[in-house]
């Protein structure tokens, strides 16, 4: 079992309270930062750690922080993106509900590094119970002098607010999140200007994922260089994975980046293999937005090397034979899963969640869903398979925000890797629409 930096004390009784968290080494990072380090030194430590954004894009957090514009006399903001709504991803919810003080500690250290005097946690509206946990923890932190005026006598003051969203997936996109936080309709903004220059209330803003901010705590405790030694290559440190689907032991796992995918799925230490003794069919490795991969390609790269749980290894081969680490929502599907139905289900989600602002996504997501619905229900034609790929291509890269890509990638990848299954739905509509029927491979009828 590898090192656990975030979830080391997660099972300690009462860890969600300030006293117990403090007793287990909590708020040391804040003390270290505020008493012994300048804000720039904190940014440098994060840079050295090689931490990459845990929300899905994998952009280096330290670099993002250093891009923040710092004009004189203008407030800056740190906003925590806790609007976790990607199908398959549920790590932030776990982290916040179990270890609220870890996030608050990270927020204090991050805000100090960026010079923010007011910071926000924008939390998914459905997670009302987590919001209550966070608010309770924030109140405790205020009472203990870790939030508010003149924290620990350092002269640094910070106010931290939790703001619930109203149920839109799109508000996890950083500029839509800022719009929503400002009280407007959650439509993504046109970029440029980027949030680092004009973000919340048109002020310089950094938006980070919950896990990225929480990870600042172990980085400061260990030191950036020490943290960077964990992991493989440019994928440093540990990362939370939310494993779900047809696994024996689904759940949240904190992994040192670099564990082989095969070990993660089959080892008893982690997911314990596929349930009911069945075969693995496909994996969506990083939340519903990333391309789906068949068993052969998720376990081994096209070159025959073992695929590892790292940013680089999972994206090896580009989108032709690779995928992305994304947000760490690891969905395993066994041999009884119908890929066409699954793809339709994903596209239904994106159709429902498109904000409707720009035309390719607004019209294209609905179109894809309808065509996939047709294919799944035995009314499709061969032409429809190419059509849905073509529509996906027309959306990809032409939209304001990445939701267009998130909708297009899974569809394009499903057809790329499971085209024969789509064709089977067209050729054998009666078989394919029989309840429980699943494509069993070329020439075999279920």
């Amino acid at each position: 079992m590898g090192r656990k930096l975030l979830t080391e004390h997660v099972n300690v009784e009462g860890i969600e309270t300030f006293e117990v968290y403090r007793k287990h080494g909590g708020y040391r990072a804040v003390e270290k930062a505020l008493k012994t380090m300048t804000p720039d030194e904190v940014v440098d430590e994060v840079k050295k750690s090689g931490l990459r954004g845990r929300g899905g894009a994998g952009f280096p957090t330290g670099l993002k922080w250093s891009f923040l514009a710092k004009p004189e006399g203008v407030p800056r903001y740190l906003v925590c993106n806790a609007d976790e709504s990607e199908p398959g991803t549920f790590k932030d919810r776990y982290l916040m509900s179990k270890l609220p003080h870890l996030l608050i500690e990270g927020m204090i250290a991050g805000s100090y590094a960026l010079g923010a005097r007011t910071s926000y946690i924008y939390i998914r509206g459905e997670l009302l119970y987590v919001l209550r946990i966070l608010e309770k923890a924030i109140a405790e932190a205020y009472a203990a002098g870790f939030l508010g005026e003149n924290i620990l006598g350092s002269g640094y003051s910070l106010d931290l607010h939790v703001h619930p969203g109203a149920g839109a997936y799109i508000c996890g996109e950083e500029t839509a999140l800022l719009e929503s936080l400002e009280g407007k309709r959650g439509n993504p903004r046109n970029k440029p200007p980027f949030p680092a220059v004009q973000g919340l209330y048109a002020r310089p803003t950094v938006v980070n994922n919950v896990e990225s901010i929480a990870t600042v705590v172990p980085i400061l405790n260990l030191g950036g260089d020490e943290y960077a030694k964990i992991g493989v290559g440019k994928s440093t440190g540990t990362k939370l994975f939310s494993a779900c689907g047809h696994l024996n032991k689904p759940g949240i796992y904190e992994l040192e980046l670099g564990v082989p995918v095969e070990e993660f799925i089959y080892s008893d230490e982690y997911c314990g293999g596929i349930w009911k003794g069945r075969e693995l069919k496909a994996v969506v490795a990083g939340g519903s937005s990333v391309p789906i991969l068949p068993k052969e390609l998720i376990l081994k790269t096209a070159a025959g090397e073992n695929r590892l749980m790292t940013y680089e290894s999972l994206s090896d081969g580009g989108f032709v034979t690779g995928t992305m680490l994304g947000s760490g929502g690891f969905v395993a599907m066994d041999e009884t899963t119908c890929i066409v139905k699954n793809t339709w289900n994903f596209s239904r989600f994106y159709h429902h969640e498109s904000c409707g602002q720009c035309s390719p996504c607004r019209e294209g997501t609905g179109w894809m869903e309808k065509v996939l619905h047709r294919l799944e229900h035995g009314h499709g034609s061969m032409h429809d398979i190419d059509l849905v790929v073509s529509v996906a291509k027309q959306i990809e890269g032409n939209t304001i925000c990445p939701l267009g890509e998130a909708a297009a990638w899974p569809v394009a990848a499903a057809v790329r890797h499971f085209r024969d299954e789509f064709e089977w739905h067209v050729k054998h509509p009666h078989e394919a629409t029989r309840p429980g029927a699943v494509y069993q491979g070329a020439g075999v009828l279920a």
Partner: protein
Amino acid sequence: MAKITFDGIEVEVPDGTTILNAARKIGGGVVPPAMCYYTPLKGSGGKCRACLVRVAAGSTKDPRPMPKLVASCITPVQDGMVVENTTSQQVLDVRKGIVEMLLINHPLDCPVCDQAGECDLQNFAFEHGVSTTRYEEERRTFEKIDIGPYVQLHMTRCILCYRCVYTADQLTDGRVHGVLGRGDASEIGTYIDKVIDNDFSGNVIDVCPVGALTDKTFRFKQRVWFTKPMNAHRECSHEKCNGHVTLWYKGKDVMRVTARKDEYGEVKEWICNECRFDKKETTDWILEGPAHVDRSSVISQGHYELPVVNPQIIADLPESTIRDLQQNPPLKLGGLNG
């Protein structure tokens, strides 16, 4: 100042200018189409994706190409930028895709739509689209909503450019107009049954690129290409309105009044509802002369201006046509102006 190369043509524009406006400085066929961007409206643009262009070189300092196509209406130029619009096959292909997306849920009821002939979507589709569709599903439709005595909202035709939303926001007091719903169920709403009721509400008709917002006092009266636009003005008592309009004539009757638009269909001076809806007599106005309509060629195709400029052409026309032309108000400019 920044110097950029647009489709091989060099142009120098002030820093901060968008690529689209730099292209408009060149003018002509290289200008990307724009369905949602509207110069006078702050915040507009970036939504329809019709104006996507390829940036082959970002700037002199950083000559790398931009990884994705960018919306030219909102992307500012950089010195040394190289932009490809009509010279890039990728851009033309994507634009075809955008037309297709905009049309799949559009009712294509041009034969009964008042906007036909001056519709940006019609022009855009004609120039860049394909004549068949791959969309077999049922098209999206909406229930009709009554939004007052002057403006007809026909949501089914809407392409959600947000222009009218920005107009209502920026031009009129008390916002009653916004977008409800999400994704392809989004719709322009006026918060339940609040009527757009203020002095400048009529301008939403002019900014609408399609037939989603039309003039109730003009609906079904006349096809626009049978009417003749004349620039005119009057002393308007409204402080924000200076009374510069275009009158659209059929015979001697003023069929409708609109604000004046430039060659890109953009209104430069907003007009009030009194000028637009209540002053429909020639005697209300001081005529200035025929309005030139560049882009919506279908309106200009009658070339009614020509006989005035070039009497020689009249001589070559059949007698009946000359008689028709002589009976048309534009030919009797002097008489009308008194």
